[in-house]
């Protein structure tokens, strides 16, 4: 079990960097290699990083083949309006899942794939289950949900082709102190729009719990789908009140203007966040502790409280020469 080579796609993102830093402390992990279009967001001591565009199939194949990973943790998923706009996010996610997963399938030592997905994959169309578990029908109703469906499909196909187990972690909306999140940005505005007719409940997960779930899943070679959600739920109005923001109740057509204004203020409201505000987003996370022996610790209320406490700008004093 010792000395496992772990490939982390999407290491440049906050979640990827966090997973890599946790992997560095794991006794079973040997070499760690990361691929992303952005450099890692935290200091990593023994991880090797390659800045590669997901469209550069030849270079990705070369790096992955030479590394020959035992475990692939695929985190290269761009949430719309987090690090990239919806169109770019869709393109990057699709390219990354095809190029990196396909390259990993050719690695002779590959034993396990752990891929990131989200509870957006269940969809929130009319009649969709209030709190779907992992066996619930998948019927994505947003662009992000459909992107995640593609990631899951490709991961499963590659796993089948390579004869390795595939574990899918379906994360609730991830929030963290430095994590770019469209939901987090919307909720942190001074005035936050919410649906007066719905005020639906949703859940979230903090980035540290999500990252720990990936590390535990990789260590155990988890297979199948698992929801990763914080305990508890909160409604949009309650979240706004916890942050002591000004709630702006909206009913219908004025959402068009609210989205435009929010966009101009630097907090675009993508389709899946609109869906969350109007229809809510809950999921049953009870299978995770029974399968992995791990459960997120930070409750949905605590995540929201922390969201409002995080500094908007962290000022680092100038380094003095010794």
């Amino acid at each position, binding site marked *: 079990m010792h000395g496992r080579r772990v490939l982390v796609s999407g290491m440049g993102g906050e979640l990827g960097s966090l997973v890599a830093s946790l992997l560095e402390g794991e006794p079973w992990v040997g070499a760690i290699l990361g691929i992303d279009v952005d450099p890692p967001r935290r200091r990593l001591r023994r991880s090797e990083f390659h800045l590669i565009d997901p469209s550069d199939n030849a270079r990705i194949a070369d790096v992955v083949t030479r590394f020959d990973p035992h475990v692939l943790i695929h985190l290269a998923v761009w949430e719309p309006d987090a690090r990239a706009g919806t169109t770019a996010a869709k393109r990057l996610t699709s390219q990354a899942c095809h190029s990196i997963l396909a390259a990993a399938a050719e690695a002779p030592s590959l034993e396990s794939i752990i891929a990131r997905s989200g509870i957006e994959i269940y969809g929130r169309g*009319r009649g969709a289950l*209030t709190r779907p578990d992992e066996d619930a*029908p998948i019927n994505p109703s947003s662009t992000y949900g459909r992107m995640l469906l593609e990631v899951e499909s490709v991961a499963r196909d590659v796993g089948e082709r390579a004869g390795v187990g595939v574990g899918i972690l379906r994360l609730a909306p991830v929030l963290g102190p430095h994590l770019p999140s469209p939901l987090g940005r919307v909720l942190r505005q001074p005035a936050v729009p919410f649906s007066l007719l719905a005020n639906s*409940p949703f*859940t979230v997960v903090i980035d540290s719990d999500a990252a720990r779930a990936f590390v535990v899943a990789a260590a155990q070679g988890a297979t199948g789908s698992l929801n990763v959600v914080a305990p*508890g739920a*909160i409604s949009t109005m309650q979240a706004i009140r916890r*942050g*002591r923001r000004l709630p702006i109740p909206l009913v219908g057509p004025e959402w068009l203007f609210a989205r435009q204004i929010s966009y101009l203020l630097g907090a675009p409201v993508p389709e899946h966040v609109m869906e969350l505000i109007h229809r809510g987003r809950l999921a049953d996370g009870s299978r995770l502790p029974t399968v992995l022996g791990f459960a997120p610790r930070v409750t949905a209320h605590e995540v929201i409280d922390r969201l409002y406490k995080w500094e908007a700008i962290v000022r680092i004093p100038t380094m003095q020469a010794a």
Partner: protein
Amino acid sequence: MGAVIRLPSSWYPTDSVDEWGRDAHLIERLTPFAAMRWSVDVGGAHHLPKRSGALLVTNSWRFALNTIYSAWALSDATGRPVRFGGRSDIAPFGPVMQRIGGLLGSPAEIGGALRAGQLVIVSAASSAHPRRAGAVDPALIAASLAAGTAIHPVASVSTPFGRAARVEVGQQVRVRVRQRPLDDVELAGLVRRQIQQLIDGAGES
């Protein structure tokens, strides 16, 4: 960024929604209004499991809101949230019903709640007479059997103008250890008969 506004905290707590969207505080606030309409007498609540999930099936009379007042009265009697199936999924009614404990009526939704260890009350088919039990949906019984939870018949009797109402919970319906095809259909018929017996035994409300 600091606080933008400060609202009074007592009228609407910020942590009262549970993992299914039920708002215990809202129900507490609405209970006095519900008490103006119904004065519910509960019997047989001791039959219900203390921790595990169970499917409760009650009779339904048009516009009587049997499942809602039964769910609230049983929540009060058992100290556990009792959810009711059959909420709408259209705003604003759907979200409001969700906040007061409603679930969608689909067998998948009810089955999910039962697997999660919840007490869920659903109604039999609506009847034109307040003291007649309608047909029970076998798909809901199948969902309960799949979840491995107990099934209890519940009689809920009320009058259109009076406040007096009664909710009587029956003993757990006996289920064969070895399941056979059409067990759910047979059980649905049995549950309906047991609800009718409870209604007949409940007397006039």
